[in-house]
């Protein structure tokens, strides 16, 4: 029987080439019409050390890490045991390894998985210049039943620059791998993919960058930080091609300051960071809120607090995103609900930040940001300029912070005649002149709250799915595994609603209440210690029933089975 999804882990020491074959495998599968995810594990060493390529391939869009890996294929076993918790196996799994390269770790054999020994290195030695990783790729592609021609095309394209001899050696090694006996008679063969739609192969970090550009961002300042650096690195050559600017700042204080400066110049501006950088940015974030500056700030979350676990995922910056900075400072906080959605949500964030003259924080995470995914190609559409620009002005008439019903006041930019204004983080009056009068303070605070609370965000605030009297609320990277868990629970007869919140602040209280109408119980699923979203939802008082919480810290991704267990127990309580 062929399968609709399969999960493969490829492991080995640094230099064994597992990342190379992982990305070839994903691309070949993608070109054959499959969907898939590809993420990377590596040891604490800066370079080298143990490594693993984690793949999940399917006939429909894949948005969650798997419950178990169907196969762990190791080129060698150097420290692969360190990944034991990250590469879960079960009795039906397969461990494929080269007996010459040592024994699989106890921790992994304990799963009861079947061990199949294959002579990768010996087989590679039969080919001049052949490498064991290419042999393993041949084995895996055969296991999955992938089209060998497609795979060869991908291999040739990827290593083309290295010359004919290497291409030939790789091809031969690949074939040598395919000729090895299949361990389990085709149990891992994938079903044929559906008629493929146009698709992209992209990481969450790249999708954020593309979404930002589509939204109109033409100025980016950033300071390198794992796992956010790639957003900036991807943008570096591209922004100038679009007439934009990218600056590597001396630190995050400067990065966010530069972005606010560019935004003052009338150019949609962004900065990108991870938790430690966001902590450093909150003072200037408050300035941008007080002075009503459009700004997009992407936070690719990692394990926290402090330096935490830079290379692994967690959803623990929500509190800081919502509450970070002194004083009352409402802002936009959004989180993409999938890697594919990172593009659209980032783009929407730019539109909202510009329209509402306020910073928008986009919460991605390491898992979403650094995982490559096959997604349906997003239709090409660039956002219109949504900043409310003041028309031609009479001398001495312009009031930057005019009190309006919507809370939004027309904005000028340097160069606009008679539109001069001085941005200020001091409490100010409608003109922007500093004031410590209670009436100005109250009026401007109320205006800034009103523009957020009264804006019509439409239906995009969340994805609402299913029905039933119990509801699961998720955000960010917990949406995918929860969807999968709920699908299974529904298949086994449960009825559950799923609300995946995309717009976290301002919370759409009425829409949320409507989405939960008739619901008896609510549980919030997230990957952090405190249950930050659960607490926030309670704080707002928007949920009519007690808010329950299923929260646990990272760095391990949430897997559907963990949720199936939790939710089925919870549903029957």
């Amino acid at each position, binding site marked *: 029987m062929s399968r609709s999804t399969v999960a493969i882990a490829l492991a080995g020491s640094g230099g064994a080439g597992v990342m190379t074959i992982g990305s070839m495998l994903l691309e070949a599968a993608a070109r054959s019409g499959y969907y898939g995810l590809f993420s990377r594990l590596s040891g604490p060493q800066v370079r080298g050390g143990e490594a693993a390529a984690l793949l999940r391939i399917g006939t429909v869009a894949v948005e969650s890490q798997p419950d178990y890996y169907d196969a762990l294929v190791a080129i060698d076993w150097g420290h692969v045991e360190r990944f034991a918790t990250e590469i879960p196996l079960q009795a039906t799994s397969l461990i494929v390894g080269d007996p010459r390269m040592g024994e699989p770790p106890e921790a992994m054999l304990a799963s009861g998985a079947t061990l199949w020994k294959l002579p990768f290195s010996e087989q590679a030695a039969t080919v001049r210049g052949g490498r064991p990783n290419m042999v393993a790729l041949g084995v895996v592609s055969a296991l999955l039943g992938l089209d060998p021609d497609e795979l060869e095309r991908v291999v040739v394209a990827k290593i083309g620059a290295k010359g004919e001899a290497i291409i030939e050696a790789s091809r031969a090694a690949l074939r040598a791998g395919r000729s090895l006996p299949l361990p389990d008679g085709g149990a891992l063969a994938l079903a044929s993919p559906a008629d493929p739609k146009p698709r992209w192969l992209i990481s969450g970090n790249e999708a954020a960058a593309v979404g930002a550009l589509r939204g109109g961002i033409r100025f980016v300042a950033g300071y390198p930080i794992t796992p956010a650096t790639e957003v900036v690195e991807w943008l570096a050559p591209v922004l100038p091609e679009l007439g934009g600017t990218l600056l590597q700042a001396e630190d995050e204080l400067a990065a966010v300051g530069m972005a606010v400066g560019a935004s*003052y110049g009338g150019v949609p501006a962004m900065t990108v960071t991870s938790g430690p950088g966001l902590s450093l940015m909150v003072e200037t974030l*408050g300035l941008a809120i007080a002075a009503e500056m459009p700004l997009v700030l992407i936070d690719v979350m990692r394990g926290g607090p402090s330096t935490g676990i830079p290379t692994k995922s967690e959803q623990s910056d929500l509190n800081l995103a919502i509450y970070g900075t002194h004083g009352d400072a409402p802002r936009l906080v959004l989180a993409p609900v999938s890697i594919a959605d990172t593009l659209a949500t980032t783009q929407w964030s730019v539109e909202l930040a510009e329209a509402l003259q306020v910073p928008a924080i986009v919460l991605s995470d390491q898992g979403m940001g650094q995982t490559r995914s096959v997604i349906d190609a997003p239709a*090409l559409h660039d956002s219109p300029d949504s900043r409310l620009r003041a028309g031609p002005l009479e001398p001495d008439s312009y009031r930057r912070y005019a009190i309006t019903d919507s809370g939004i006041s027309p904005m000028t930019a340097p160069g606009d005649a008679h539109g001069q204004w*001085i941005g200020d983080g001091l409490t100010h009056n409608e003109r922007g002149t500093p004031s410590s009068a209670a009436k100005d303070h109250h009026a401007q605070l109320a205006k800034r709250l009103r523009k957020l609370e009264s804006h019509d965000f439409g239906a995009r605030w969340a994805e609402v799915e299913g029905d039933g009297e119990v509801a699961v609320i998720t955000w960010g990277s917990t949406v995918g595994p929860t969807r999968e868990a709920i699908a299974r629970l529904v298949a086994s007869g449960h009825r559950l609603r799923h609300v995946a919140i995309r717009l976290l602040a301002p919370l759409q209280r009425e829409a949320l209440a409507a989405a939960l109408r008739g619901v008896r119980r609510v549980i919030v699923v997230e990957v952090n210690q405190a249950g930050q979203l659960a607490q926030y939802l309670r704080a707002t008082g928007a949920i009519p029933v007690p808010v329950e919480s299923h929260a646990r810290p990272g760095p391990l991704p949430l897997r559907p089975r963990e949720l199936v267990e939790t939710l089925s127990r919870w549903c029957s309580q």
Partner: protein
Amino acid sequence: MNAPTLPKLDPKDFKSDVKPIWCPGCGDFGVLAALTRASAQVGRPPEEIAVVSGIGCSSRLPAYTSAYGFHGVHGRALPFAIGLKSARPDIEVIAVGGDGDGYSIGGNHFLHACRRNVDLVYIVMDNHVYGMTKGQPSPTTEPDWICNIAPAGTGLHPLNPMTLAVAAGANFIARGFTGDPNGLARLIVEAIAWPGFAFIEVLSPCVTFRPEQKDWKHAVHAGPAEPLSDRARAAAVLLSDDGFGTGIFFKGERSRAHPLPAASRTMDDIERRFAL
């Protein structure tokens, strides 16, 4: 840029109607006067100028001009200015602030602005004190100055900002005195004209917390006859300088940062790489 049809500009065209909060006699009035005179001379209208600052008495200056501008957070005037100028090279950007704002909390941005050499002018009103918070030592304060927070003086080596600027790569370095607003205006005009990052250190007395600075008018004297162009020599001169010479000390050879590139590709083009 200078449309020939522009009416002749007057310094008062660059003044706003906001009343300064400064103490009577504060040196910063002289900087405001110099800046408005310089702006009139440069000839660009107020809407093509942006004056940005951090926090401090001196940092209140932008609101007293009729230009665009920003009174941001303490110490971050330069990142803001660099972001603005990089996004809008057509605008004249002038960053202003105090010695606390620029050399204490903002010291790192100062160093890196010198390196980055974006085409803007940075004017520091140095009064060797934190005026706004009522009298604490700044990085340029004399080590034996007594105040509440340092009852025995700081005992610290005062910072020499002009030497740092030359070492870090600033392209124009001058010292002015607020007691001579015309002289200061001339420095500002030259700084605007010179490419890259231009730094003007201004002796600007705080009459309230450093009343002895009223004597600075006797201490200032003409600085170097000609600006130097060799960084090593300029650094040596500045390190043995008495701190009261005015004029242009250094003009470098670094070129103006490039203007914004024109768009050369479309999003469609750029996105193609993701398509399978």
